């Protein structure tokens, strides 16, 4: 597959007063991949994401998204991306159908609520309020709102935080499905097992700088090549496998 960059970040800097949140980072996201931004809290992941999403001003640097400059063409970019914010709420007192209708209006797109809810298997919750949903359902609904405008790229900021293993796996399937339908996915996460399974490539960020970018496999191989060994012998299964094995793969609504 020819690797065509869809997002190009060059020398991005973001300062909040004296605090240097993002220090001169550069990377590319290729079309059709799941790209992971990994790093501890406060590393600058969300800031970087929000600058690319045109929600935050940058201090300096150059970014293009799907061929558009974030400085000159923010509106064109907004039409081509879908954004899921960490901990964002939804308009109060509305049910899921009405929220989808609202977002369709905001994007200027005629989509029926049902066709969107179907994509994330929430049609039976069409009349429910957002706050009545379980954690996994909330995340899937958020993803539904990012897909309304048939975006070229979607951004997911810690979508699986706080979910149980079943809901997490369910969400991975959904994210893979979106990628397989041709949408590029940029995701942040704290879970390395998740990044390892889900992401085609990952970038490690710490202290506002990118430390390295590669595929999960290559990173692991490189580390092993240095002679690194886990202290505990790796077994063929881990505790999460046990959890799933004991409680079933079936995803819970609770």
């Amino acid at each position, binding site marked *: 597959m020819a690797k065509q960059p869809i997002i190009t970040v060059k020398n991005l800097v973001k300062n909040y007063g004296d605090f240097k949140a993002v220090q001169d980072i550069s990377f590319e996201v290729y079309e059709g991949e799941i790209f992971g931004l990994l790093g501890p809290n406060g590393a600058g992941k969300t800031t970087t994401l929000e600058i690319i*999403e*045109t*929600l935050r001003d940058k201090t300096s640097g150059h970014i293009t998204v799907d061929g558009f400059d974030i400085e000159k063409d923010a*509106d064109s970019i*907004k*039409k081509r*991306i879908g*954004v899921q*914010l960490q*901990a*964002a*709420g*939804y*308009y*109060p*007192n*509305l049910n899921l159908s*009405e*929220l989808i*209708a*609202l*977002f*369709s*209006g*905001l*994007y*200027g797109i005629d989509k029926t609520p049902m066709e969107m809810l179907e994509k994330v298997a929430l049609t039976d919750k069409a009349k429910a309020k957002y706050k009545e949903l379980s954690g996994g359902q909330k995340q899937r609904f958020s993803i539904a*709102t990012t897909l309304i*405008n048939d975006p070229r790229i979607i951004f997911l900021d810690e979508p699986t935080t706080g979910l149980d293993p079943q809901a997490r796996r369910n969400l991975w399937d959904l994210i893979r499905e979106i990628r397989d339908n041709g949408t590029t996915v940029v995701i942040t996460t704290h879970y390395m097992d998740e990044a390892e399974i889900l992401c085609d490539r990952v970038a490690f960020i710490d202290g506002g700088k990118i430390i390295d970018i590669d595929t999960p496999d290559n990173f692991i191989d490189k580390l092993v090549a240095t002679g690194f060994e886990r202290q505990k012998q790796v077994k063929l299964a881990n505790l999460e496998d046990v959890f799933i094995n004991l409680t079933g793969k079936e995803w819970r609504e609770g």
Partner: protein
Amino acid sequence: MKKYSNFKATLAIAKASFRSITRSPSSVVFTLLFPLIFILVFGFIGGSTVSVDIGVAKNSDIHNQLFDSLKKISIINFIQDQSTADMNANLSKGHIDAIMDIEKHDTAPYYTVNVQYTKASQEKGNILQSLLRTMFYKMDIATRPSNAPPPVAELKETTVSGREYKTIDFILPGQLGFSLLSTGVFGTAFVFLSLRMTLVIKRFFATPVKKYSIVVGEAMARITFALIGAAFILLIGRFAFGFTLIHGFVTFINMMILSFIGVVIFMGFGFTVSGIAKNESSVPPIANLITLPQFLLSGTFFTISAFPTWLQPICKVLPLTFLNDAMRRVAFEGASLWDVNHQLFYLLLWGIGIYAVAVKMFKWE
């Protein structure tokens, strides 16, 4: 790609916001329920005007012309079903205002009326006193022999015909103003603060929507809701309590226009409060700081002239005062909108002032 429509986006927000408002208990309570409760309470209180309760002594003669004439006076309420002991006890407590005992004679003076007043109800005693005097005077004149000298003084009474200014005519515009004030200030402040706090607005910004679409959409929804509330209050007032809309439909429309002006200005306060407030729990104190003084001082319940003179200048410059004033003049006196241009001018000044502050204070994030 289809051309993006800001109009569609604005409408989508207006629709969502309107749905949300109608499902929010607090906005329904403040816009409709509170004003209606006040109107109901004052509507019923207002129905009973002054009434002088007079106990009729057990041995009083009640089959005579004097008693019948007194009975016809609307404010006199004779009580005949209490024992003498009860009557005396109630008189001293002021529960009844006087006890009357009429003796009829065959020769002049034809009537002796013993009236016992009470210190517990002096005001009503005075009313009764002057009623009785007027009545005696008239009977006196009527029974004068034709050869008697002319009376020293002559009483000529006329009543100009006018509209009855009912309690509801005063209370309703005040309550309507209060409804507009609370929905404008509280509703707007809460919605923008919570949209900001829950990052709903931030999520909106990730769509192609323009900032003005968000503000205009929200405003459209709130104004629509406030005006539906206003129409509801006016119609209930008109048909259930006889509120005076002097020129009928035209007055109704003028009242709606005033309501529109009012809510737009009050929303300016709401925008300002949403910018000042740090979180949801700091909205009520700040919003109350704006609404409560106006609620009390703007002639919502009693006329401003009832306040001490040092307070009146403050009362007179509050925006709700101008709105209440304009509404009362339009509804009762039949003033046109041009006739209340003085009030409208000051409302306009308030509007310009508050929106200048709102633009400075308002926060998106």
